[in-house]
C-alpha cells in the first residue's frame, strides 16, 4: 500500500509522516508540491509545517500548488486524505472540509503533549481506535483554533463528524474543543495535533498516533 506524503516549501513534518507510514507497514512515497502526479499512491498525507511561510493565510498558497489538483480530484473520488496541522489548514482552504483554522485565542504558539478523545472510528483514518479512546499526542500550532458558523457546527455535531476533541482546558479556542473533523464520506480527515510524532515511546510521548496510519492501511485492504 503506497501512501504519498506531500512536501511543500516550508513543510517540516514530512519525514516523520513518512516514518509513521513505514512503521505502520505501508510504503511511503514522497510527493513534491510542484509535480501534479500522484505516482500511483493509494492515499495521501498533507503533513505539518509552515508551507509558504504561512504567507497570506496558513495553507492559502499551498492549496493552489500543482500537486493539489489531482489530490482534490482523488479525494472527491474517495481516496483517503489526512491533513495534519498545516495540512488541516490546507484542507480547509481547499474547502475539502468545512470551517477554518484561525489564530490561537491567547495568541501563544503551543507546543505540548495533549490528551484527546477519539469520537468517530468510522473514518479511513480512525478505524483502529475504539470509540471514546483517550490518546496522548503532541500539539504544536499558532493557528489551531477551529472556527465555523453555528449551522456548520450543528451539522458536524449532528452527523458525528468531529473525530477528535481536546480533553480538559481548551488549548487554542477551537469551537466545541474540536481537534479534528472528517468530510461527509469519511475519507478526508483534518487533525490539528500530530500523530506522526507519537508512534513509539522512544521518540514520542506514546505510541497512540500510530493507529491513524494502521487505520488507513486497513481501510485500503478492504
Amino acid at each position, binding site marked *: 500500500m503506497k501512501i504519498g506524503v506531500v512536501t511543500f516549501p516550508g513543510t517540516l513534518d514530512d519525514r516523520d509522516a513518512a516514518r509513521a507510514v513505514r512503521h505502520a507497514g505501508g510504503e511511503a512515497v514522497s510527493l513534491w508540491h510542484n509535480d501534479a502526479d500522484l505516482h500511483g499512491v493509494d492515499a495521501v498525507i498533507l503533513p505539518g509545517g509552515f508551507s509558504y511561510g504561512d504567507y497570506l493565510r496558513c495553507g492559502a498558497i499551498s492549496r493552489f500548488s500543482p500537486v493539489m489538483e489531482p489530490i482534490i480530484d482523488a479525494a472527491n473520488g474517495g481516496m483517503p486524505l489526512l491533513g495534519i496541522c498545516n495540512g488541516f489548514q490546507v484542507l480547509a*482552504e481547499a474547502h475539502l472540509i468545512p470551517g477554518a483554522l484561525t489564530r490561537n485565542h491567547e495568541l501563544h504558539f503551543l507546543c505540548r503533549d495533549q490528551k484527546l478523545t477519539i469520537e468517530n472510528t468510522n473514518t479511513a483514518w480512525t478505524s483502529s481506535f475504539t470509540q471514546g479512546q483517550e490518546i496522548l499526542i503532541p500539539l504544536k500550532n499558532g493557528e489551531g483554533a477551529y472556527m465555523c458558523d453555528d449551522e456548520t457546527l450543528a451539522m458536524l455535531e449532528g452527523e458525528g463528524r468531529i473525530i477528535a476533541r481536546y480533553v480538559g482546558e481548551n488549548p487554542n479556542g477551537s469551537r466545541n474543543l474540536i481537534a479534528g473533523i472528517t468530510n461527509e464520506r469519511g475519507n478526508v480527515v483534518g487533525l490539528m495535533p500530530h500523530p506522526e510524532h507519537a508512534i513509539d515511546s522512544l521518540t514520542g510521548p506514546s505510541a497512540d498516533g500510530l493507529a491513524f496510519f494502521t487505520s488507513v492501511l486497513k481501510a485500503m485492504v478492504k
Partner: protein
Amino acid sequence: MAKIVVDVMLKPEILDPQGKAVAAALPRLGFTFAKDVRQGKRFEIEVDGEPTAAQLAEVEKAAEKLLSNPVIENFTVRVEK
C-alpha cells in the same frame, strides 16, 4: 497612479485575538479612546493606467478565491487615486 485596494477583515462574529491584543496595549500607552480594535489586511494592486471595470471584476474574483477566505473573512474592493 491609481491603484486597486482590497481590504480584508475577519467577519464580525469571528474572534480576532490580534485586535484584542492591540486593544489591550493601547491603554497601557495612555491611549484610552478604543472601545474595540479589529485587525485586517490591505492589498494594494497596481495596474497599467486607470483600472477598468473588467479589471475590477477580475480583482473581485481574485479577492474571493485567494486574497480572502470567505468562510471567515469579508472583503471590499475600491480604486484609490
